[in-house]
């Protein structure tokens, strides 16, 4: 079969996104039309994008697509070249799959904005964000990469602040953009260091091709500095602890389709960047790089999930889980770096694939969960879980999709989260033997922390799903909720299917990684990754662990008759009666008696008290005895220690310094004359 070349697909996708931007801006007076054309062209573009990525990844190594210039160069060093190489194609696949589902979902979702906000503008930003993100993944020149990166940050800011009537959206936007920009500053410096090392003379010295040849030729100091800058810069975007504080603030306030995009794709650009620079450009890494990345990953994972548990704002909870999952991804990447250092390319392949597979998986299930949260928000007009409940009966399809996402993100078999975490565990386990230094302890300890993370995530999603969807509605909003529009369900359904597919058929999907690992590590996929006719996932060594999610699922279905047989055998005559829940003899349960989200996470809050530093305020009103309270007011706050101990003092310090500086401009012309005078005197004395 003669498929069109990936390049053509890519060009079509870019054009379609571009068209979407322009068309929805032009159509912004007619909101229905703008909705249709804006998200319609994004849908089309997404399909093209998937085509580009799949053809790019399957057309064999070294044949990913040729480089083409998007626009002629204007100024020195700027080459607007685009090339779809395997790594880029993989990330394009992520963004395109998500874009497809999100665009379909958005048709229905943005109807909620009709008459309130300008849908055309939203669609235009949405398309622009996707365009910029696609370009970030395909740019083959660092200068161009930075341009796409900044446009991406800018459009993301606009989308975060889209509902700017809410103060929290404005503040979140500012915080996001400032941190993102600081990160970009680091990236600029990092790339400039590479550029300088490349000579900085030839026009192509910003090209990825040139950077690729640098590798081990870089001096150690420069390499380490660049590593730290990149880690910081991309880390901010990815939301690693302690650079994550913008993430739980910014992601929830955006419209939910956008939140899904932010959490699903945008933070992955940080992962893309790290993979690109660390595996593609910088040669054999020193040991401490891998150790640092692995440590950061572990800390991010654990802290991310712990903070997530403390949230009862559904979207904030999901945002914190993004931090956790970024941590898990970084565990894979960090392990891969350490293996590269000790020259275990096969293991490095395993670890890298684990990280990247989790990247894909997280994109899918996090987007799914955000879409679910969006549907809930759409139906109940609140993000506070304490006001939800009982939605499973009112929004059954949404509930099902959310449940699938919850199982997937909790890394439970047989869904996709389990598969990638399984690969990560395997990589960590294998890592123990790669070195004799004490560093090897890192691997199992990280594994243990990953286990803690997984279990806490499960706890968190029991809470998220249970409190949101199960039991009685806790507010009128929740009681009056309705199932959302079919397009929204279709969007969620698509991602649900993707979760299941990626969970059950990992071996099919992993084949796509072959050109990628060849490109980055010069190592084809280890054969053991796909044993037994391709349905069982192995690791890199013979007799190592294996897993088959498909087998587990099929076996589960085969076992289903067992309880049914028992039932038929013993209890054919039994009846089922619907009755009230046991209420200890009271007059019936009210929603107030249900367990709350805050209550649910209380044990964990107590266990990790030293970390959360919770503050509680209790006000008791009573008539005659404190034991018979009339009214009880209870508040519990948790503020992140990073915010209170690091960012706030830093911010305050900078502002205090700036205010002091303002004293220089105090309004007195005499003082100003003296400045000039002193400048002149100094110059006369020293410059001559």
């Amino acid at each position, binding site marked *: 079969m003669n498929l069109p070349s990936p390049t053509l697909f890519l060009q079509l996708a870019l054009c379609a996104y571009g068209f979407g931007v322009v068309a929805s801006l032009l159509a912004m007076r007619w909101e229905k039309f703008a909705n249709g054309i804006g998200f319609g062209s994004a849908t089309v573009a997404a399909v093209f994008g998937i085509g580009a990525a799949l053809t790019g990844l399957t057309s064999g190594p070294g044949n990913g697509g040729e480089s083409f210039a998007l626009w002629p160069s204007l100024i020195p060093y700027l080459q607007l070249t685009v090339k779809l190489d395997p790594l880029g194609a993989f990330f394009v696949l992520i963004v395109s799959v998500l874009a497809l589902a999100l665009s379909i979902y958005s048709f229905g979702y943005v109807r909620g904005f009709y008459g309130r906000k300008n849908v055309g503008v939203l669609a235009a930003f949405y398309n622009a964000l996707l365009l910029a993100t696609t370009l970030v993944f395909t740019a083959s020149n660092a200068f161009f990469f930075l341009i796409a990166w900044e446009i991406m940050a800018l459009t993301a800011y606009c989308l975060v602040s889209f509902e700017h009537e809410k103060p929290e959206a404005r503040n979140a936007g500012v915080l996001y953009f400032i941190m993102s920009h600081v990160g970009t500053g680091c990236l600029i410096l990092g790339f400039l260091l590479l550029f300088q090392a490349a000579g900085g003379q030839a026009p192509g010295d910003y090209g990825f091709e040139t950077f690729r040849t640098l590798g081990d030729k870089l001096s150690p100091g420069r390499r380490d500095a660049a590593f730290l800058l990149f880690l910081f810069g991309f880390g901010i975007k990815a939301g690693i602890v302690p650079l994550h504080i913008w993430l739980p603030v910014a992601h929830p306030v955006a419209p939910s389709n956008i939140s899904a995009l932010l959490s699903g794709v945008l933070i992955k650009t940080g992962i893309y960047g790290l993979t690109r620079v660390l595996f593609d450009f910088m040669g054999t890494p020193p040991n401490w790089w891998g150790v640092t990345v692995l440590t950061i990953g572990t800390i991010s994972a654990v802290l991310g999930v712990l903070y997530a548990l403390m949230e009862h704002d559904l979207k904030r909870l999901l945002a914190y889980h993004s931090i956790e999952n970024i941590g898990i991804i970084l565990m894979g990447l960090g392990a891969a770096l350490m293996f590269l250092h000790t020259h275990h390319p096969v293991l490095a392949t395993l670890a890298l694939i684990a990280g990247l597979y989790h990247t894909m998986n997280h994109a899918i299930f996090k987007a799914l969960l955000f879409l679910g949260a969006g549907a809930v928000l759409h139906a109940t007009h609140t993000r506070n879980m304490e006001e939800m*409940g009982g939605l*499973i009966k009112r929004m059954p399809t949404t*509930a099902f999709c959310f*449940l699938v996402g919850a*199982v997937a993100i909790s*890394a439970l*078999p047989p869904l996709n989260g389990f598969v990638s975490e399984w690969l990560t565990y395997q990589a960590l*386990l*294998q890592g*123990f033997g790669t070195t004799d230094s004490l560093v090897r*302890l890192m691997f199992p*300890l990280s*594994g*243990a922390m990953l*286990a803690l993370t997984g*279990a*806490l995530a*499960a*706890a968190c*999603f029991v*809470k998220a799903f249970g409190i949101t*969807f*199960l*039991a009685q509605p806790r507010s009128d909003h929740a009681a009056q909720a309705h199932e959302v529009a079919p397009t929204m369900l279709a969007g969620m359904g698509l991602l649900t299917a993707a979760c299941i597919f990626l969970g059950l058929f990992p071996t099919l999907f992993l084949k796509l990684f072959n050109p990628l690992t060849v490109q980055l590590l010069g190592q084809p996929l280890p054969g053991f990754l796909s044993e*037994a006719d391709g349905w*069982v996932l192995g690791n890199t060594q013979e*007799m*190592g*662990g*294996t897993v*088959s999610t498909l*087998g*587990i699922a099929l*076996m*589960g279905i085969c076992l289903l008759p067992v*309880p049914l047989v*028992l*039932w038929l*055998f*013993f*209890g054919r005559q*039994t*009846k*089922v*009666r*619907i*009755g*009230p*829940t*046991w209420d200890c003899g009271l007059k019936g*349960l009210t*929603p107030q*008696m249900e*367990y*709350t989200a805050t*209550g*649910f996470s209380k044990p*964990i809050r*107590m*266990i990790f008290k030293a970390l959360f530093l919770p503050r509680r305020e209790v006000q008791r009103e009573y008539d005659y005895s404190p034991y018979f309270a009339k009214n009880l007011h209870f508040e519990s706050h948790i503020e992140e220690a990073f915010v209170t101990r690091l960012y706030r003092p830093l911010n305050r310090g900078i502002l205090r310094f700036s205010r002091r500086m303002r004293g220089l401009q105090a309004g007195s012309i005499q003082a100003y004359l003296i400045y000039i005078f002193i400048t002149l005197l100094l110059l006369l004395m020293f410059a001559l």
Partner: protein
Amino acid sequence: MMFSVLAILLQTALLLALAPLVSGCIKNWKAKLQNRRGPRVWQPYFDLAKFLRKDMVISEHASWIFRVVPYVLFISTLLAGLMVPMVSVSAPLSLFGGALAFVGLLALGRFFLALGGLDPASAFGGMGSSREMTIAAVAEPALMLAIFTVAIAAHKSTNLSQMLIAAQGPTWKLLNPAHVLAFAALFIVLLAETGRIPIDNPATHLELTMIHEAMILEYSGRYLALVEWSASVKQLVLMALLANIFFPIGIATDSSAASLGLSLGWFLAKLLALAGAVVLVETTNAKLRLFRVPDLLSAAFILATLALLSTFLFQ
């Protein structure tokens, strides 16, 4: 192919048949140690049969989740059980997953059970779910670290059968400090996972102390049967795991009837010994306050860490 289907069927039957017996033994022995007569060893079988025949009352607030939970729990526990080698070195489903899938499947069951606890809108259920998930979370690192330790000794394979083979090895490895420590850690985890004293009291229905029982408070009839059965199967497979990996004596390495029979005998003996240990612990300890449980489990984590350290410190 035929053989493996047979193996699956046999092991499933073994799991289902043996699990209530182990629970019954523990209950009975515990009573004996406390100078009570206690229920008969076979009592759990009668209980299950009774539950299956009873009508069900389902909460008006419950959704389909409530009805699905028993099945998911039951099947995931059975699947986990099929991955553990019991009488034969090769577990029927060892290709489909090793230690990690085992842990994952148990977690899947727990996840749904916790949802089932929340579904009927009862405060008890929520409380039980919350505590169950918390304790599981705190137990998980110790469990994983212990598994890592054993897996490292087994050429870094997470396949339970491989671990077993490696443990059989030329010498019995329990004398290895790494194994001793890992066993201790896993034993604590076993107590936590199966809801035994000092972490949870399986016999209590006192509202404020129960964990597992609180979650399943609303279940009745055949659903309760499935849930109870799953609990005992889970207990069985965890004990089997401990027994076989740390005491790999007499396990059949081929599939002849004689060796399988011998192996079954050994297996029963080991199980009962382990059950005895559990009973001893349960009788000699009081239940811990909820917020002391993490201390115990972090002790398990430290034991596991020491086990890990000793894999290369003492070699």
